[in-house]
């Protein structure tokens, strides 16, 4: 009997819940767009992407409350949640689905492809490898977006300029992160023209960091990062070990320079988001369809320098570099 009662309670609760959702109903208004944004994880770069996207849309005249309603969800790196999030958007017949980071973009594509809802992705390093675009960069369906491919050549040229005698550049990466592996391939491709050897060290999770740092720091002159989520998350370990050995660490984006990397030629994820927002605006205005719009790579990389880190390493940054920098940080956060 008890279970029956409990079942009854659960069912009535669920009815109550759906009723309460009805209360908050905002039915579709003519001329108003509904956009669902699914983000893979809470992560400064991805957060910046999302904020940039909203800014980019606003610049084009699409604003929350005015002519757009947004629903923002975060999958907390869980595939099951990601699936539920996009199911929800598709069921709601959203006018556009935005997916931030590779697994989200794939899930969004898998869920929305039968309904022809345009999907815009951002922060996907290699849309071709993720099968979101074909070899010529053409969309595989009603899906397009922006790639956060690292400006590897520019980064190597920066390393070479700041440390011309550095011959061995080390990279730590997580063996399960496909983005890192493709970035390392890029590094190896460009390194030879600078006379640099790329030395890599794989880890499987955060707990391997300390040991892996000790190991690789004995073999390299300079360290550089790729956009490896695990390594970036435990960046302080790498930085403190590298400091002991007086080895400079280059970052892969602005947040890492704030945290103690000496410099980077990095992406500004807010800019990337804005560029994505502008693409989305074009589609919302009906100027172009997502399936006819090739994915875009952010054109400009910006130079970020941390002068406090340079002081700690007894390195004097060339005035030329300081002048070129987008931003110079004088503290370590």
């Amino acid at each position, binding site marked *: 009997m008890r279970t029956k009662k409990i079942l009854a309670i659960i069912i009535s609760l669920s009815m109550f819940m759906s009723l309460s959702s009805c209360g908050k109903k905002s039915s579709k208004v003519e001329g108003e767009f509904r956009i669902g944004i699914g983000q893979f994880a809470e992560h400064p770069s991805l957060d910046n992407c999302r904020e940039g996207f909203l800014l980019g849309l606003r610049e084009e005249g699409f604003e929350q409350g005015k002519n757009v309603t947004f629903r923002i969800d975060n999958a907390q790196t869980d*595939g099951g*949640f990601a*699936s539920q999030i996009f199911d929800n958007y598709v069921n709601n017949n959203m006018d556009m689905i935005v997916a931030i980071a590779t697994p989200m973009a794939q899930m969004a594509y898998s869920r929305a492809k039968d309904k022809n809802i345009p999907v815009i992705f951002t922060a996907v390093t290699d849309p071709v490898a993720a099968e979101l675009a074909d070899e010529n960069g053409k969309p595989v369906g009603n899906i397009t977006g922006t790639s956060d491919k690292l400006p590897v050549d520019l980064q190597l040229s920066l390393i070479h300029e700041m440390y011309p005698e550095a011959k061995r550049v080390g990279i730590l990466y997580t063996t399960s992160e496909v983005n890192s592996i493709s970035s390392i391939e890029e590094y190896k491709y460009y390194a030879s023209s600078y006379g640099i050897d790329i030395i890599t060290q794989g880890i499987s999770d955060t707990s391997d960091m300390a040991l892996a740092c000790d190991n690789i720091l004995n073999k390299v002159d300079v360290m550089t990062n790729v956009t490896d989520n695990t390594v970036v998350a435990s960046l302080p370990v790498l930085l403190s070990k590298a400091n002991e050995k007086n080895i400079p660490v280059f970052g892969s984006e602005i947040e890492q320079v704030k945290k103690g990397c000496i410099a980077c030629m990095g992406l500004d994820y807010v800019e990337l988001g804005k560029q994505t927002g502008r693409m989305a605006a074009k589609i919302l205005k009906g100027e172009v369809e997502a399936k006819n719009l090739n994915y875009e790579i952010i054109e400009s990389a910006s130079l970020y320098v941390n002068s406090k880190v340079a002081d700690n390493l007894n390195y004097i940054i060339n005035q030329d570099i300081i002048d070129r920098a987008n931003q110079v940080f004088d503290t370590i956060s």
Partner: protein
Amino acid sequence: MDAIELLKFYFITPQEIIGILTGVLREGLMYSVASLGVYITYKILDFPDMTVDSSFPLGMSITAILLILDVPPILTLCISFIAGALVGVITGIIHVKFGVRDLLSGIIVMTALYSINLRIAGRSNLPVFKKPTIFHLEYFNFLDRSMKTILILLVIVAICKILLDYYLKTKNGYLLRSVGDNEKLVTALAKDKGNVKIIGLAIANGFVAFAGSIFTHDRGFFEISAGTGTLVIAVSNVIIGMQIAKRIKCISDTTAVIIGSILYRACISIALSWGLEPRDLKLITASLLLIILVMNSIKRKNKVA
């Protein structure tokens, strides 16, 4: 955070209700196959089998790579089952023959399989969007896509259930159930209880890998992180199912497990459509499980009193 709260909006339409229901059925049915496997280890053998968290992505990775090699979709399901069964045998051998504790032997195999899964797929994320899957088969074409998916899943789940029910009624199946209930009986029947356990683990992990395979067919890509938490979800499904089976006598345990999986998904969907954020889902999952377990123990105490 405030900005995001402000940006949120909730509404519900008939299409949304149908959409939610099909979503619940689809996810519930897919997980129910894994739950049938966990039913064997958790309920019948009383074995906390951590292998599940990696045999699930094993099924996913094998399916992804086989689809890329243009292996017929249905065959990928069978191969995944066999691969999962092999992994179950390994866990069983480590536990039974080498005397490693049950939990630990599962963890050892799970850890090793992480690397093996990466090896199989070649990388941590492998899309198969361009390949035909079981959901593209030329059956039930009169239905729309989501209905077709559910019908195909129903057929698969029904086959799994019937086969498992049939197996549990065979002599082997009776032995399997006795190992969990009364090990001495098995020994008294002059049977090796270790071997029975190994067979049980093999079938269980076969089902789990089979479920993983279905997931790749549905999602269209393999992702290494997808398996984490499978055990917890499947155990929750089994526990809910067992509560149903206890109350409603006319349905079998296996049917109850399938219903439990769907109910569990329904609870999560309700929580989500209520406006809870996906980030809170793990908390909801844990609370749901705790409530059911506590209800159970209170009931037991009342009975004793």
